[in-house]
């Protein structure tokens, strides 16, 4: 393993629903520098995917309110987006829609 590689971590990503269509896959492994926060990781995903993917994830600087983000199968609270990711973490991105009217 080179010095460069040791400064990278690999994060697993699962895309759901239309995000899988935009990304062209349901699952991916993405290498990012050690210390990358979840917020920075999502920005990286926006950079490496087609433009409509960005629209599905965010409006301006804000994540879309209907985007549900999981880290290791737990919903990420707003204050936890700036926590650094770890090697082997799994991030799930879910455009959440629910039922209808009552």
């Amino acid at each position, binding site marked *: 393993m080179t010095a460069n590689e040791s400064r990278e971590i690999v994060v697993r990503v699962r895309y759901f629903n239309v995000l899988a269509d935009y990304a062209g896959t349901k699952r991916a492994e993405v290498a990012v520098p050690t210390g990358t926060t979840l917020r920075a990781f999502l920005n990286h995903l926006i950079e490496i995917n087609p433009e409509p993917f960005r629209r*599905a994830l965010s409006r301006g600087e804000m994540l879309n309110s209907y985007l549900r983000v999981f880290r290791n199968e737990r919903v990420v609270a707003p204050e936890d987006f700036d926590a650094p990711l770890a090697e082997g973490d799994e991030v799930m991105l879910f455009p959440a829609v629910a*039922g209808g009217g009552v």
Partner: protein
Amino acid sequence: MALTALVDLSSGSIRYSETDPALKKRFLGARGIGARILFDRVGTRVAPFDPENCLIFTTGPFSGTPWPTASRYHVTFKSPATNAYGYANAGGHWAPELARAGFDALIVTGRAASPVYLQVTDRAMAILAADHLWGLTTTATHDQLLGAEGRRGPNGRVLCIGPAGEKRVRIAAIINDYGRAAARGGPGAVMGSKNLKAIQVRASQRDKTSTAFAAIAREMSKRLIDDPKTSGLRTDGTVVLIRPKNMTGDLPAKNHQFGQVPFIDNVDAHALNRYRVKRLGCAMCPVRCSRLSIVPDGENASAVEGPEYETTDALGPMCWNCNPAVIIRANQLCNQYGLDTISTGVTIAFAMECHQRGVLSDPDLSLEWGDGASIVGLIEKIARREGIGDVLAEGVQRAAKIIGHDTHEWAMHVKGLELPRQEPRIAKGFGLGHATSNRGADHLYALPTIDVAGNLDTARKIFPAEIVERLIDPADETYKPDLVIYGEHYCAVTDALGICKFSTTEEYSLMPDDLARGLCARGVEITGAGLLEIGERIVNLERLYNIRAGFSRANDYLPRRFTHEPLVLRASETDPATGATRLGAPLRAGQLLKFDAMLDRYYQLRGWDADGRPTNATLARLGLREEGSGIVCFVIPSEARTLGSVE
């Protein structure tokens, strides 16, 4: 002890009895009790508009208490839309008033010789002449009965029908508290057939709530408010769904020819909020998802409680209508005439597709997609049964038979009830739920939200770990039956308690054990699992009602469009010139629903045979042998038959 009242409008008699405790033990309340009473009283020889049909208004054990969202009443009847089991359910303030007047159930049968209304007071009621109300809109009827002080005055609460119900329009609703609707399946038409215009309730009693129960109710209310999953509903109401549904292809448009619209910026929550004057909520609700909308001037000047999501899609994208002012005005007209907004929008979309394909025209209206004048004009004609409105007033299933040609291909219904506003080729669990619902196409019979909402935490609480990964994927059909069945049971419990699904199956903020805690504090010893068993019993009883009416597997199918016409999902993009949202390139091969395998697994998990009939063993397990006896032969080889692979 609360009462059941039996009102015979033919004879004018009213009988009171204490509600049978055994009935409550087996069926809990509201929806469960209504189902059992209908099963007993309205058999196969009774047609929906016969005097012998019943309208059974029921409340639940939480009605009239401080339990969060305990605002809903249930009305059960033989449906003029499906000619089988029917019910509708509404929030507002009418149900708590009926419960505080001391009634669990109000059974209306017979037919009055001339228009009447019921006036309910504490543990009593009277049948009064309503000639002066007949022909009035629902708002005018409320105003007449409540007086100048309206809903804030001392004259209680009202539910009523409008002109559509009086004319037995099969998609007619009951409207209560000015703007809430018990709409699905044609209860307004049944009420009209009885010459019953309204029920006014004025109670002076208050629920005697124990300190322990009040504390649990407060805890649950706080949990609903604190749950981030309800935040969208609390800020924007159900129209918060419109934009993400458009992105995922789950926004039915042009009579389900599309799942997205290119004009989303015109009809999303942001656009509709421009007309929102204030937020509204039902009794005891911390979510408050409703709204008052006003179009201040112009040809669409109007004011209405709404529109919520289903109405917005039905009268908007389904009809290719991009004008939010038309949606609001059309919503107001439906409420005034007393029409189901879902069925009305779907029926108008059906008419527009018939016109698109050259088999329907109208001397006054263009019937072109998106034409606001045609939408408004058809609502008027349907409500009055004028011209083609008389045909469309029958609902899409019957209208297609009358019009002929291939129009049945464009009639979006299951069992005769028009489809609610989900796209089955994308929201596959909802597709199955629409099909299996015993009241006809219905998103609220199962409300299988867990996958489309990405509610992983709840999935892990309910389902075996080994199926969760596939169950949570909206695109994977394999375990959608598991999702639908759990939802059907929990929805039945929710309806039986008289509470709103926005506290339970929409977001799963409250779980069955939470509801059981509340019931225990009111002296009903039960567990969450026990509640779900009652839910299963209710669903099976409703199924038996329909089997007795001649229904079978053939009645559990969606329109052919969803299994044979691929739906193409398109990318959502920003137009660089205008900044508006537009639809771009196709994203994947067209989607179809693989339906039969889902239905097979659904029946197998339920303990039903391949034709959808509960087996002997299932009925015995649920304590329904008595109800099942004599309907069909339940000793069938399929009890030991393999219906397909179960993973």
